């Protein structure tokens, strides 16, 4: 049984115009299903605004979906009782992108780490201090740092504190919502190494949400590519990474900059903006930006279908290739 199963989740946001009463509907997440096994890291990639953070928030129980189920440890998160939800939440933690606002500036960081501890365990004050010290050591900080305030830390250190807080209750799944994106590259590498190490030591599972396909490649065991609220490609084994075939996945791959400007080729600088327009319900989502579209793409919406074992993609073109 998988640790987390997401079944056909949809979430739309409506914004009403006061004068015309015509709502603009944004379909942030559309019919998404995926699962995370224990000890696995699923990388969720996509450009900004594609709904990946919304999906993360739905999984964390912060935003109820319009339809679909989130099944965590065999229980539907949004349909269980309050107590059950509290119990589930203990195994489900998060690290957010904005490390600056992730710790309340009014309190020393030990308050931030003790918050989950106090909600679930009744430790004596000395046990609590000891546990906080252990956690800080685990993420590579000095236990003495627990008395400092958020503004006394650097970005990388703060993100380590956030990871320590997420680890406080020995969770099973941690949702890393762009957890390394706002750090600079060398610090990113340190945090990624720390995350990989913790995963191995504590048998953690991650949902690693990022727009950086390189970082995802480094940490993830499986990859899901998201575009405009839908999954367009899933690979269950990171060793098949070079077999990503969907035109959008390829575009993401070419967006990775080489380590030196001299190695830059023309394909690296190709960039187009997303134009959100109400698309025809029957045409492919990715039609506007696709450079290998054909007649069929205008008429039938491609669905996520199996290419090989553990590799799904939503594109007409690829199915043909596979058949041939």
């Amino acid at each position, binding site marked *: 049984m998988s640790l987390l199963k997401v079944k056909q989740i949809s979430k739309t946001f409506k914004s009403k115009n006061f004068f015309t009463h015509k709502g603009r509907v944004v379909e942030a997440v559309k019919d998404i299903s995926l699962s995370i096994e224990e000890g696995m890291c699923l990388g969720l990639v996509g450009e900004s605004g594609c709904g990946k953070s919304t999906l993360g928030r739905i999984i*964390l*129980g*912060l935003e109820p979906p319009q339809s679909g189920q989130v099944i965590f440890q065999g229980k539907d998160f949004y349909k269980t009782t309050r107590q059950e939800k*509290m119990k589930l*939440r*203990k195994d*489900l*933690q*998060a690290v*957010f*992108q*904005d*490390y*600056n*606002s*992730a*710790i*309340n*500036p*009014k309190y020393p960081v030990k308050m*931030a780490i003790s*918050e*989950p501890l106090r*909600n*679930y365990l009744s430790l004596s004050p000395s046990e609590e201090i000891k546990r906080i010290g252990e956690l800080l050591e685990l993420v590579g900080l000095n236990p003495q740092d627990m008395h400092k*305030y958020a*503004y006394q830390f650097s970005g990388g250190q703060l993100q380590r504190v*956030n990871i320590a*807080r997420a680890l*406080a*209750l020995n969770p099973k799944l941690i949702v890393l919502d762009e957890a390394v994106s706002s750090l600079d590259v060398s610090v990113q590498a340190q945090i990624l190494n720390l995350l990989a190490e913790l995963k191995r030591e504590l048998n953690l599972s991650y949902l690693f949400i990022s727009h950086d396909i390189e970082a995802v490649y480094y940490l993830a065991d499986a990859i899901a590519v998201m575009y405009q609220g839908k999954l367009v490609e899933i690979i269950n084994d990171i060793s098949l990474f070079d077999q990503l075939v969907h035109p959008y996945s390829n575009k993401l791959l070419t967006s990775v900059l080489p380590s030196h400007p001299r190695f830059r080729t023309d394909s690296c600088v190709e960039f187009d903006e997303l134009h959100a327009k109400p698309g025809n319900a029957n045409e492919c989502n990715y039609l506007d930006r696709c450079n290998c579209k054909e007649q069929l793409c205008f008429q039938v919406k491609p669905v996520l279908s199996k290419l090989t074992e553990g590799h799904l993609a939503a594109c007409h073109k690829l199915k043909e290739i596979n058949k041939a």
Partner: protein
Amino acid sequence: MLQEKVKGLYRNKPGIISFAVLAVIMLAGILAPVLAPNDPVLVTLDNRFAAPSTQFPFGTDHLGRCVLSRLMYGAIVSLGSALLVMTITITISIIIGTLSGYKGGWVDTLLMRMGDVNLAFPDLVLTLVIAGMLGPGLANIIIAMAAVQWVWYARIIRGMVLSLKERSYVLSAKVAGTPGWLIVVRHILPNIIPHVVVLVTINLGMVVLHISGLTFLGLGAQPPTPEWGAMLNDARQYLRSYPRLIMFPGTMIMLVVISFNLLGDALRDVIEFREG
């Protein structure tokens, strides 16, 4: 952190001076029964419009009452009621603003539409209508002012809560399983209270003016209660012949309003420095 801020306030000259001025006025009001040279309501018609002397340091008014004593007793009425109005107003608006901002949805819509109805009328007119309906009296204008002004603060507090509740530390607290009320108490209120304190201090001057204004119009404290607005009203008829009568309470009101404004500015400089 708190000590740093106290030290910061200590270094801020206008802040410390205005605080001292307000403290002296407040103290004079509280100690008036001991310090005041004369009975503030004792009418001695022989002494009408007496010039300043050792017995009446600021002279006497049209009924021969000691102006200094009336100013001292009036301080506690004017400042005290302003503080009371502010306390009531801000308590209501913190509760409503936080509820509205944090809960959102229909609670928010209901409370804010109620507020909008209130805001659709001019401030002073609405206060006058409510105070008029309740009848003259200090307690009634306090109620009327609180009933009108809470909306304004509730809106501001709602806005602050809206921006705070999307902060990552609130989301993290939710994920950590902290119940909603505790998130409000632990994470949201401590972050809005300093800003509210600044807001309140700056606006206290305005409330003092408002109360004096309403008393000037005959609502609020009734004669012979010494109150600065009422003293202005009494002195109005003798503006030409005895201008000093209007100068004393006028100066006091100005002093208090300026002090509150400067203190508010100083607090803002100190509290909102390195927020984040």
